[in-house]
């Protein structure tokens, strides 16, 4: 592995072609499955099962129509709507509560504040499958099974650690003088938070919103157990067919494409903050 270097232009030039080659192969590997999802969703059945695989085919939109309205009984549409509701509300809640608690802990001395911080962070590691048994019985107790609220509450709590860790950095970078000036102008502490601090961390809020939204959008295990029909999300619908996909790959992949394509766009927008968001800010 002598191809690394930070500063020597010579070695860069010498290995440039090799770098491009390796990078291109890697990117090809990363993108190919997306191509498979999209192309399969546009194929007719006989093209889907063709051997050798058909690279050139006449694209059709029928699978999308089937996926939206027919496949699996009544199609994906109701599930898509549930997904959007749960994702949006849980994201707003997580970012809101997360911003509040981060600000509270960075700007005020709170009893055991340090421990609260680490506690919130460590929830990032909670394995959902281990929490799903008690959570299920808890939701049953309060009658929140198969409701939007139940899922929203769980997703909000799951995303808090992520939000706190990203937003805290943004709050820390606000010069304290700005807030002090606002205090002198007669703002209360809460007004300083809502009218001065929050607007200043808007970029951070947007980043965390996207990240939490993706997490909620992608979540499968909890949704599949906590909801049966009224509040079931898109992954529940998708997971509902595994093991019996026999012939229905076309509509199935169409749903997959709907699930993945919006996220692809957001990932590209996000990529600058991805490291920090996904590593606890331990790497910046």
């Amino acid at each position: 592995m002598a191809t690394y270097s930070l500063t020597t232009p010579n070695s860069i030039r010498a290995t440039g072609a090799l770098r491009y080659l390796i990078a291109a192969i890697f990117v090809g590997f990363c993108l190919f499955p997306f191509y498979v999802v999209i192309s399969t969703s546009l194929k007719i059945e006989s093209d889907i099962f063709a051997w050798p695989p058909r690279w050139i085919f006449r694209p059709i939109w029928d699978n999308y129509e089937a996926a939206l309205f027919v496949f699996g009984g009544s199609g994906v549409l109701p599930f898509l709507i549930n997904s959007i509701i749960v994702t949006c509300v849980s994201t707003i809640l997580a970012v809101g509560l997360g911003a509040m608690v981060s600000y509270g802990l960075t700007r005020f001395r709170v009893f055991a504040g340090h421990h609260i911080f680490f506690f919130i962070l460590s929830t990032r590691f909670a394995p959902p499958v281990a929490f799903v048994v008690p959570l299920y019985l808890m939701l049953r107790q309060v009658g929140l099974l198969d409701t939007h609220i139940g899922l929203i509450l769980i997703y909000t709590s799951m995303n808090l650690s992520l939000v706190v860790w990203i937003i805290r950095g943004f709050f820390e970078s606000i010069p304290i003088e700005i807030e002090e000036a606002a205090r002198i102008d007669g703002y209360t502490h809460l007004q300083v938070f809502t009218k001065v601090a929050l607007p200043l961390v808007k970029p951070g809020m947007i980043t965390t919103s996207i990240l939490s939204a993706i997490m909620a959008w992608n979540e499968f295990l909890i949704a599949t157990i906590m909801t049966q029909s009224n509040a079931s999300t898109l992954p529940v619908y998708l997971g509902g067919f595994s093991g019996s996909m026999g012939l229905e790959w076309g509509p199935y992949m169409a749903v997959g494409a709907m699930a993945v394509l919006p996220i692809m766009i957001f990932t590209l927008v996000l990529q600058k903050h991805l490291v920090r968001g996904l590593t606890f800010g331990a790497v910046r």
Partner: protein
Amino acid sequence: MNSAKGAKRRKFRTSALAATCLATAFSAPVIAQEESILGGETIRIIGIGDPVFQAMQKFHGEMEEMTGGTIQLDVRPFDVLRQQVLLNAQNSTSSYDIIAVDLPQFGEYKPFLTDLDGFIDATGYDGSDFHDVAWSGAQFGGAQLGIPLQPHPEIFAYRTDIFEKYGLDAPTTHEKVLAAARTISEQEDGMSGVCWNAARGTALGQTFIMDMGDFGAAPIDMVKEGDDYLMGDIQPANMKPMIDTEAGKATADYLQALMEVSPPGILNMAWDERVRVYGQGGCAMTYIWAGRSAIFEQDEASPARGNTAYLPHPSGPDSPPKSTLGGWYLAIPNNIDPDRAELAWKTIEWLASPEMIEEYTKYGNCVSPRSSVSKIDSVIERCPVIPHVEDMSIKGELAGWQRPPVPEVQIIVDVLGAEMHQVISGEKPSEEALSDAQSQLDREMRKAGYY
């Protein structure tokens, strides 16, 4: 069968048939004008990816027109359906109005199903057109818990053209199945012997206990009477698992022998796939739930179409042929919003009506639980398997004890589905797997407090 009762029944059937014919003749145009069944409401049904619900999906739009409402139909695979139904039972109010129940599941589901007798009495519903076994299969403790929609047996199908070509005996016993399969696997290009459910989990677990039935043995220690076991009154003492037995060993040996004459990918093969592979000529024989025969009988490109003969499950040595009866019923969960119960019942009545049962056969569901429908010529033409099943039913070759309707039946199936997969994939000797399964199930039964 008591012959006097049989005669009475037959008479009943003919009159029912006449009535149905009249009804169909007049009702077709009437349906649309009559006060609609749903009247703008939405009915929520969870079904299974089995022929009858797949048929409903195919004319879902027409069905909504007929009922004048919205039919929200969720079609899911077996395990997902069971999970959804059991979890739904925990909800304060049911998320579904109507659920699909597999015959052996009534034992597990009975605590949370609505007793339909109230509706049956109130509306004067007539169940006599349904096959006796099918109708009474949903009775527990004197309560009718479900209405038959797609009850059918797992039987055996084979290619008559291939068997003729090699001069083979009809595969009525395990021995003949294996002998024929070996010949065909060796000599017929690109064709394997037998397709069957070997996928890990429910598929293989059910295969195991149904094949154990071929040796005249049930998976738990039930009381035997003649060739069959008594299912009416299963006591805690009868819950002792009977897996590590001679019959269990014979079954494991048979499955291992099947592995040698199975198509590629057998370790993941289940339900529809085995029938599809058979239909495409990938194997010469297949185990099959009767209703699924439409997959090839209604596919003009299939070489198996019109070249298939049907038999009961092939039997082991010294045992009579026994096919497991299973299949789907419609039921109402008892946590349903009381205001919706009547709507659910009206919909069930309609979904299981003779007209609809006939309609389903047009869309690939080769099952008729109603004698009146089984006699319609066009139905028999579409589904040659239907008279065969009637025949087996009359001969007493259908039974349900292979999958006893006890709450633990799915646990038995799960354990066997995992243990036996290790046997057929060659990772564990059958003796060890059988004794492991036996002791696991023994502990489960103790834990449930049976003994």
